[in-house]
């Protein structure tokens, strides 16, 4: 243990190798973007849905890469540093069960509807299913507003990792960040690289890049875990450090409440409403293509999350023993988001491997960013510009151009927003996921409930948006004097009646949808029949 304390505190010579590895990784992504552009067929259909040609392995990797972001690597490590092992049960094991359920029950059906009726975006589907143009205009800004924070999570998470690993590299150039590459520069480089390969390849470029990135972050995550374990003196030694200095992290008592643990199940429902995931579902070659994704997804989550959770609790033990230093937040508390970067920096003594591991973290983050950028570009083009124009107003080439211009605009806006970061990246993410999860009844009813009506759907979206806003303001603006919920002293989470806000807003959403639908006239049978298999 003493050797670890000395190691963490000893001044070490600065190596630029990790930075070179990160640059090389970015170079590979640019090369992949160039290669994917050579397969690009030059049509908007290929740009938006890869001509519905993606096979099982690419679908698995792209969907998994899209659902995993800074949340999975930075957030989980940070959260387990704060709350211990309960974080895995909260997010990972619930997600394994529920994500796969959604891929099977929602994804396959939406793929079939998308192929049958030629949808390219979620809003197109909802407009058609609920026979409501207005619903599209209400839903569109809601979805965009929820995706943008999600993008910010990625950019901020990437900045935190790059900053941690490049500390003291440029003491004169970046004196204000202790010589580390600042957020504005790392965010700019990452945004430009992602922009390039989605600009030239569309969703196919994102899918190819996601596959490479998923491989990188899964392999490097496991390697990071093994190397950090070795750096701590072995798995048993790491376990002893936690048991001795921070035993509470090995269980859940006092860190996660029972109600919170159960009601977290409403958060992973969010994947059913992610517009970027909807777009990936549409790329599948056939329904059978989904099979591998449905089965392998929980296992892949386990492979990525378990090492991160263990690294987080080991860091808590090390920190409690004085063997790990962390940058401090303005209130003096340790910056949990820097845990993974610091653990790699302190315990993996190979600059080359440190660089590879950081590239893995960036891969997890960028594999979501790309899909989100393509998705927003597709939505702006299809759901706003083309939808509001006369039929055949735009040629296919013009649609492509519009989409690319929108992608540039979105990247620019989100980059600027990332320069004014909120305090805790993970909490921001939970609110974003809460909104998507609360809208889940809208998609579920569209597929499985014939009686749902246009009025029910409209009321559902309005009530979900209103209640989400109220709880969000109560948590963020009135943080110290929240009126509707309260901050749980053990977990530091904002809870309503002891539950995750996602559960409460979900109930409001579902009750509104069902209640208003039953009070209004059912939709025409011949219209509803279009969305159900003959035997259903």
């Amino acid at each position, binding site marked *: 243990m003493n050797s670890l304390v000395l190691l963490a505190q000893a001044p070490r010579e600065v190596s630029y190798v990790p930075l070179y590895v990160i640059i090389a990784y970015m170079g590979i992504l640019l090369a992949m973007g160039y290669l994917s552009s050579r397969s690009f067929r030059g049509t908007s259909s290929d740009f938006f849905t890869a001509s519905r040609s993606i096979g099982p392995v690419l679908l698995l990797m792209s969907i998994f890469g899209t659902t995993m972001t800074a949340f999975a690597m930075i957030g989980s490590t940070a959260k387990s540093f704060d709350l211990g092992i309960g974080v895995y049960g909260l997010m990972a094991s619930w997600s394994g069960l529920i994500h796969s359920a959604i891929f099977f029950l929602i994804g396959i059906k939406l793929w079939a509807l998308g192929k049958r009726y030629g949808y390219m975006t979620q809003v197109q589907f909802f407009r058609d299913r609920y026979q409501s*143009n207005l619903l599209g205009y209400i839903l569109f800004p809601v979805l965009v507003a929820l995706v943008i924070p999600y993008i910010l999570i990625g950019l901020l998470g990437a900045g935190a990792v790059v900053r941690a690993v490049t500390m003291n590299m440029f003491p004169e150039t970046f004196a204000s960040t202790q010589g580390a590459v600042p957020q504005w520069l790392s965010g700019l480089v990452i945004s430009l690289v992602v922009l390039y390969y989605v600009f030239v390849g569309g969703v196919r470029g994102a899918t190819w890049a996601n596959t490479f990135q998923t491989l990188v972050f899964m392999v490097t995550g496991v390697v990071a875990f093994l190397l950090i374990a070795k750096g701590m003196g072995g798995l048993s030694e790491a376990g002893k450090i936690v048991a001795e200095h921070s035993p509470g992290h090995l269980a859940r008592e006092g860190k996660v409440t029972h109600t919170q643990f159960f009601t977290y199940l409403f958060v992973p429902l969010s994947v059913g409403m992610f517009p970027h995931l909807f777009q990936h579902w549409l790329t599948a070659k056939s329904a059978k293509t989904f099979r591998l994704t449905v089965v392998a997804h929980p296992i892949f989550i386990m492979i990525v999350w378990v090492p991160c959770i263990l690294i987080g609790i080991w860091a808590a033990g090390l920190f409690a023993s004085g063997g790990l230093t962390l940058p401090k937040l303005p209130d003096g508390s340790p910056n949990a988001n820097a845990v993974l970067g610091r653990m790699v920096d302190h315990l993996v003594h190979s600059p080359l491997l440190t660089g590879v591991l950081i590239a893995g973290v960036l891969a997890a983050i960028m594999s979501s960013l790309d899909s989100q950028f393509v998705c927003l570009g597709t939505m702006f083009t299809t759901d706003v510009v083309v939808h509001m124009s006369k039929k055949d107003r735009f040629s296919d080439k013009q649609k492509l151009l519009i989409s690319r211009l929108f992608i540039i605009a979105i990247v620019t806006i989100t980059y600027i927003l990332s320069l004014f970061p909120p305090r805790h990246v993970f909490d921001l993410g939970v609110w974003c996921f809460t909104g998507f999860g609360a809208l889940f009844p809208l998609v579920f009813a569209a597929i499985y409930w014939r009686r749902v009506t246009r009025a029910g759907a409209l009321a559902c979206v309005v009530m979900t948006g209103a209640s989400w806003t109220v709880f969000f303001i109560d948590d963020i603006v009135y943080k110290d004097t929240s009126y509707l919920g309260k901050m749980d002293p053990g977990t530091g989470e904002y809870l309503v009646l002891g539950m995750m806000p996602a559960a409460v807003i979900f109930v409001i959403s579902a009750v509104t949808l069902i209640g208003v639908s039953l009070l209004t006239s059912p939709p025409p049978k011949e219209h509803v029949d279009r969305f159900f298999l003959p035997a259903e």
Partner: protein
Amino acid sequence: MLTTSSYKKKVRVMAVITIIVALLHHDFWFWNDQTLVMGFMPIGLLYHMLFSIASAVLWATTMKIAWPTHIEEWADEFDGPSASNPAALQGDKK
């Protein structure tokens, strides 16, 4: 086949099994157990790793038993207006 009663029965069985698996997520029996299995793996974390594996097995079984066999043929059929024919997507825009 979607129309057969045996298919519907299998779907119901899988739904019940899924609910049971979901309930097993709440392992209150390991809530305050700090045991380290093999000296490093917290028992609560190990349980949830096994839960993840069980989820994969559950969905593999579900797809084997309750796969919507006709969905691909249905997806390939053209059923009137589509997104490529924007008239279908105008909804209540008159």
